[in-house]
């Protein structure tokens, strides 16, 4: 091997090693932060059997549900939302120009009548055709508007919302009956809170009835099981790790609670990005810092929302490509958040970490795989070194998954059977062999599409019937 080639190899090895060490250090740090956060909240959870002193004093909430071609699921979703355990709330469904019978099933099932609403345009949106109100449920309204995408629909719903807090909910989300009570707690405890996200869990394998989760189960699909582990890691130590230092850069669009006026003041949801939930969270940081306010964007680890995960590789691929594009779009659009004065850990820590270990991860990881495999094939990397690195990479991946499982067991213990835990542990192993590499490739494709500015195709999510 020439000296130049050896130099390139040395440099590449340094790069990969430093990146690998940095990535795992970040994960371990997030893990420790999350454990500390769990430890701080555990006494409150332990005394949950005692009376809740704030019951009945919760502020009213507007639930905003954007719906596009949700004819199959919308009725069950709205029914379940109407039964939420919360003192005062309203539901604003936004029919975003659906081509199917979304509006007509809502009109029929909930006896919706045309309502002469003085529609308030606090955020610009596509034409609003009409507002309907249920004669059976006074707290249910439907805003019918021209198609403009999820963000535009959310903005239309925020315009129509009457209460100071609004909750963004996907039309197919399955909510816990007490989800709003849990999510509103940070707002009641701290006036500085402007947004709060909750944990989203995978509903595949669970028993759902009338839009509510009746019992937690384990899906038969390994792809779904792997996603359970992904979500456990992402929410239990990903978000819970960032929350205590006010550095959350994303509140999931599937379920999040926001101060309406603050969101209006920072321009509502952006229609120019496919990562609208992350975009809004980052804009909230920038807006509050610019306004010179002491604010908090927080996360509650309580499992409050359940969603159906894709069980086919094609749909999962489309989702992950879209997520990576959304991530890159948001990081690029809000690059001024990086190292911005006053932005605290969000700008000085979370943003750089997201750029280096999330945005660039697919490129570095794919290069790393190619380097190791190519080097091994060309004889530059010895079999012993190849095996040792593979062992370390898989070992650390497994350790992080096991740590997430431990946190789950320390806190919510949602999976009732020991067999469930073992199945999840097995999914953590399977994930590291094949799936992780495939996932990295999908993310690389997403990055490439973002670079080329190709229009995003959302792809269809194959849904099962709402009641299983």
């Amino acid at each position, binding site marked *: 091997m020439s000296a130049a080639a050896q130099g390139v190899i040395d440099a590449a090895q340094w790069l990969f090693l430093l990146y690998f060490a940095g990535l795992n250090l970040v994960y371990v740090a997030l893990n420790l932060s999350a454990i500390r956060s769990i430890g701080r909240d555990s006494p409150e959870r332990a005394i949950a059997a005692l009376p809740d002193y704030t019951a009945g004093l919760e502020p009213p909430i507007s639930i905003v549900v954007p719906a596009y071609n949700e004819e199959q699921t919308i009725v069950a979703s709205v029914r379940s939302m109407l039964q939420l355990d919360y003192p005062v709330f309203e539901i604003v469904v936004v029919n975003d120009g659906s081509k199917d019978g979304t509006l007509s099933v809502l009109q029929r099932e909930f006896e919706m009548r045309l309502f002469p609403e003085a529609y308030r345009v606090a955020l610009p949106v596509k034409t609003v055709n009409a507002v309907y109100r249920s004669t059976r449920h006074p707290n249910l309204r439907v805003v019918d508007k021209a198609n403009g995408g999820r963000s535009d629909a959310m903005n239309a719903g925020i315009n129509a919302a009457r209460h100071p807090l609004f909750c963004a909910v996907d039309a197919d989300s399955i909510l816990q009956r007490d989800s709003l009570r849990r999510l509103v707690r940070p707002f009641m*405890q701290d006036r500085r809170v402007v947004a709060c996200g909750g944990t989203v869990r995978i509903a595949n394998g669970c028993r759902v009835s009338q839009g509510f989760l009746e019992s937690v189960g384990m899906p038969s699909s390994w792809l779904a099981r792997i996603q359970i582990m992904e979500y456990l890691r992402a929410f239990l130590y990903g978000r819970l790790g960032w929350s205590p230092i006010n550095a959350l850069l994303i509140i999931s669009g599937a379920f999040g609670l926001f101060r309406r006026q603050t969101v209006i003041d920072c321009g509502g949801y952006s229609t120019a990005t496919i990562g609208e939930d992350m975009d809004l969270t980052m804009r909230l940081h920038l807006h509050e810092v610019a306004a010179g306010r002491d604010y908090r964007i927080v996360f509650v680890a309580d499992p409050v929302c359940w969603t159906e995960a894709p069980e086919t590789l094609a749909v999962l691929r489309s989702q992950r490509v879209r997520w990576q594009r959304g991530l890159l779009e948001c990081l690029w659009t809000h690059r001024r958040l990086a190292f911005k004065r006053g932005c605290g850990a969000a700008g000085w820590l979370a943003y750089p970490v997201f750029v280096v270990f999330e945005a660039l991860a697919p490129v570095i990881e794919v290069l790393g795989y190619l380097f190791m495999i190519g080097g091994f094939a060309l004889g530059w990397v010895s079999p012993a*070194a190849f095996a040792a690195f593979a062992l370390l990479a898989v070992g650390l991946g497994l350790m992080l998954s096991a740590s997430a499982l431990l946190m789950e067991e320390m806190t919510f213990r949602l999976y009732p059977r020991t067999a469930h835990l073992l199945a999840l542990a097995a999914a953590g192993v399977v994930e590291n062999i094949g799936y992780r590499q495939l996932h990295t490739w999908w993310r690389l494709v997403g990055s490439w599409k973002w670079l080329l500015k190709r229009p995003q195709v959302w792809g269809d999510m194959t849904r099962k019937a709402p009641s299983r």
Partner: protein
Amino acid sequence: MFSWISDPSGSDELRLVLVLGLLSMVVTVGLLLQVLALRARSRRRQAVQARVVARWRPLLLRAAAGDEEQPPALPRREREPLLLLWNQMQDGLRGSAHEGLNRFAAALGLPALARRAALRGGGSRRVLGLHTLGHVRDPADWDILAALLPQPRSFVSLAAARALLQIDARRAAPLVLDEFLARTDWPVPRLGTLLREAGADAIGLALSDRLLDQPPAQQVRLLPLARVTEAPGRGSVIEGVLARATDTGVLAVSLQQVHGPASLRRVRELCTHADWHVRSFAALALGRLGGAPERAQLIAMLADREWWVRYRAAQALLGLPGVDELAARALAAGLTDRYARDMLRQVLAEREYAQ
């Protein structure tokens, strides 16, 4: 530098990578074993809990009903689950049943156990202990509880506040309110519930004293407590606050609570305030306090540039005496401002739907 990767024979670096890889595997196995151990411990706890409920619940029910039988011995591992069960029953019972349960607790030595937990327990044990001392209502525990009031952990200090209010609400109110003003971590709704539980009469004076002489930032925190607790005499205090306030937060919160006609003039003035939050609450207050003479001002507010002011003005207008549906429809038809007309029609429709 990295030649060991291609020629690893005997290199320390490769050994390090191998050791780290193996170590991560060992830690993984350790974590998984801990998961299983936690699951087993949780099962054991559930079994003890079920045993405690089955054994002690009937005895507690009999004690609550006034039966004074001597309780059986309490095994060590059943102490904490029993304390929790005893507290749950105390929270769900009314009247003389408390005394019966307190006698039962004394016979078992639960107050001493609770004192130890309050002073030396971890987070949840400490709260359970404080909760118990509150139900026991022994004035001898006052100093222990007062010393725990400034605890930095809010759930511990709030539990101490509740226990103090349960023992002697009148004596505890000034202490608790001063602690609330000295810290920012007590959620207003939670403290409001504790004060309401304690009884409005007991806390009214302490609250009124503090409402009048605090800076605006503290008045904004105290005013909701006055509403939640419905403290007697709060009406005149709130009128006093409203008359003197200039801070928009204080104005908005006090406008929500003002009820006496003495404030009508001040409310009228605030209908043209620069801040729309204040205007919208002033519109509502005007509807609540005023009569027919306020009609013209509310009609003018229907044309306000802010949606919420128009909405509140329309609601207030329809609540005025003499403004029935027919009159409101005629009024809407005669309005030249489109925004005012649309708003009045919306609120009319809302009223129709509500009937």
